[in-house]
């Protein structure tokens, strides 16, 4: 039984943690919150320089050639400090989509730049406040041209390339495809949009006869996107696990420091049991995330099931910990000057970034039905 990360992977994790502790304190995150910046450029450059962006990209495409497990340990540390960087959109989404579905040409074109951090990538699926599905995608791709509107697109203002979910005219699930678009061309206009987590930039992007090219096979975009989402779900779960642990620790530290009625508030059962519940959810989430990581690294057949489990568990843990971290802080907890807000905002951002928990629960049970486990 060897259900743990290797010593090398733990060293990588320590390296990420030390860098982020040094360069990405809550004060650093706050500078993004309080400015119009889409992300924290110095932190982002540092992560690129340390090779984290290229960690799971093969050496032939300019990466370090490590695997999913290495991305997982980095993700946990990014989540711990609510890092205001485009890591998830550029790496978990764009680079992974290209790795899985891209032609050799597409890989050669984009992966080296994504690996080095020279450019940022993203994936654009949503078209406003409703769940995207093959039934309702209005953005179209035909004759090499992309038309439509995507909103919200993570890091959409700063990204140079986007994978876009577009209608290509088939029926049912075959109605949609993924296409690759250079965002720096004329047919693309974009503007920043307000979200509940201003520490991560999001944009509205309009495509007006923009040049684009298919990623993978036409009409197989939905299946491909689900595969990309499954991998991203595992990686985001590690961010959520890191965030959960940070929120738990912040709440615990405060409960030991704060006195009411002559006692540390951490001595009251209402607080103690709340923190115990955070811990329980954290441990379940961590265990499910580990399994997701193992299956992702081994490209196991039950990735969909393992990813859904990791995501559902981690979303619930982070929701509860971030929300109740504010509650443990009392009045100071909901002030702008205090730090619990970072995790409250980020927890909800991550909970929705790949679609809601309900969506994933449905996906999970569909897998259970297939697996005929009963």
């Amino acid at each position, binding site marked *: 039984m060897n259900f743990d990360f290797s010593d090398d992977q733990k060293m990588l994790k320590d390296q990420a943690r030390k860098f982020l502790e040094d360069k990405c304190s809550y004060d650093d995150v706050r500078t993004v919150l309080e400015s119009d910046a889409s992300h924290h450029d110095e932190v982002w450059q540092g992560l690129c320089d340390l090779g984290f962006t290229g960690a799971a990209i093969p050496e032939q495409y300019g990466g370090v050639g490590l695997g999913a497990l290495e991305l997982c340990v980095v993700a946990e540390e990014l989540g711990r400090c609510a890092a205001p960087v485009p890591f998830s959109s550029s790496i978990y989404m764009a680079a992974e989509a290209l790795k899985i579905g891209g032609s050799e040409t597409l890989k050669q074109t984009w992966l080296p730049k994504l690996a080095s951090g020279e450019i940022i990538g993203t994936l654009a699926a949503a078209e406003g*406040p*409703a769940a995207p*599905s093959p039934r309702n995608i209005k953005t179209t791709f035909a004759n090499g041209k992309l038309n439509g509107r995507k909103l919200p697109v993570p890091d959409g203002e700063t990204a140079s390339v986007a994978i876009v979910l577009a209608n290509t005219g088939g029926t049912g699930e075959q109605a949609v495809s993924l296409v690759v678009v250079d965002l720096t061309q004329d047919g693309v206009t974009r503007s920043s949009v307000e*979200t509940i987590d201003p520490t991560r930039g999001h944009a509205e992007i309009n495509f007006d006869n923009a040049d684009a090219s298919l990623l993978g096979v036409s009409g197989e975009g939905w299946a491909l996107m689900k595969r990309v989402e499954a991998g991203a779900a595992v990686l985001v779960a590690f961010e959520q696990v890191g965030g959960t642990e940070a929120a738990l620790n912040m709440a615990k530290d405060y409960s030991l420091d704060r*006195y009411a009625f002559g006692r540390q508030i951490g001595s009251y059962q209402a607080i103690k049991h709340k923190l115990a519940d955070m811990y329980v959810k954290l441990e379940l989430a961590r265990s499910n995330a580990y399994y997701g990581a193992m299956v992702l690294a081994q490209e196991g057949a039950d990735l969909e099931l393992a990813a859904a489990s990791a995501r559902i568990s981690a979303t619930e843990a982070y929701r509860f910990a971030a929300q109740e971290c504010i*509650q443990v802080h009392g009045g*100071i907890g909901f002030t702008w000057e205090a730090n619990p*807000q970072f995790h409250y905002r980020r927890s909800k951002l991550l*909970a929705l970034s790949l679609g809601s928990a309900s969506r994933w629960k449905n996906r999970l049970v569909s897998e259970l039905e297939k697996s005929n486990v009963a």
Partner: protein
Amino acid sequence: MDFNDTPEEAKFRSEVREWLSANARQRDTSNAKAGVSTKSEAERLVRAKEWQAKKAEAGYAAITWPTEYGGLGGTSIQSVIYSQEEANYDVPRGFFEIGLGMCIPTMMKWATPEQNERFVKPALFGEEVWCQLFSEPAAGSDVAGLRTKCERDGDDWIINGQKVWTSGAHFCDYGIIVTRSDPTVPKHKGLTFFFLDMKTPGIEIRPIKQISGGSGFNEVFFNDVRVPDSQRLGDVGEGWKVSLTTLMNERLAIGGGSGVDYEELLKLARETELEEGPAIKDSNVREKLADWYVQSQGLKYTKFRTLTALSKGQVPGAESSIGKIVSGPKMQDLGSFAMDIQGQGGILQDGDESPMGAAFQNQWLGAAGYRIAGGTDEILRNIVSEQVLGLPQDIRVDKNVPFNELASSGKK
């Protein structure tokens, strides 16, 4: 069993209606929850003062107060009836509740007749606005743990320290404050209470920005603020007793939860697509809708039970204590769930793009504070279990220990 007024209530209600229709403009109910004023706070305050003067003139500003103080000598149910009717009109709100609900009642009990002669009517007529200065950075749920100190200096007292969460401090004329006069005795015994002019030199007011971006509250700093002994309420060291007068009125002054509720969620569910189809067809959405509907109705009819008691001239039962325990988490969960329905787009907090002007997103952010302000979920459960169910207080280690020997942050 019915919802009808008694004949006396019906008569009072029709008088109120008549007066309101003659003096105010009916609310545009077609756009109920979106009706947020775009005027500046200063402009709204001017309007509010005018309206308050009109109300006071007619006797409706303090229906239950004795006539000698400018009240109507009326009943609690009359007061409720007035509020119900006024809610249909587009009148300014939100400036006088603390002053008239908490500060002036405290004055009426503890100030001299001359002081009340001087202060009650100007407050009632909206000429002077009052605030309450109790909470401190290190004294939230545990109000009596406050550290702002007062020291005797001849006929005056000198106040130093910091208060926090003071609503409206920046536009208030007067305030009531509780301070520590003696840190060497147990904490409830060393407090002294004053009222003061908010323009007194040495008072500095800073707004507190909340995570929602708003800032209805302030920090108030006291640097050698001089207050005459004549403005002391109650004896030296008896400030806690005076505070209890104020706090007993607090729960009446704090309203129930408002914001988006099941109606808006139902509307959203009808208009929004999940991956598998319309959200309203999803049984999980339906379960949640039903749960929140039932909670809302439960709170509504609990209020009706309270009103029935008032109508019969009884004191309402403890059932009224449950409102905030239910509505705080409900606001948060409902907002969060509505965002879930919107998928990835649920993160948008954009008046144009987000359904209902991002009302769900705003509520989700704000509810994190609503569960804390005016009594945390946890403190409210303590109150219910102790004051309603009669369960024992938690062990109190701070009751018989001199305040300056108590454990506290940085001093354990």
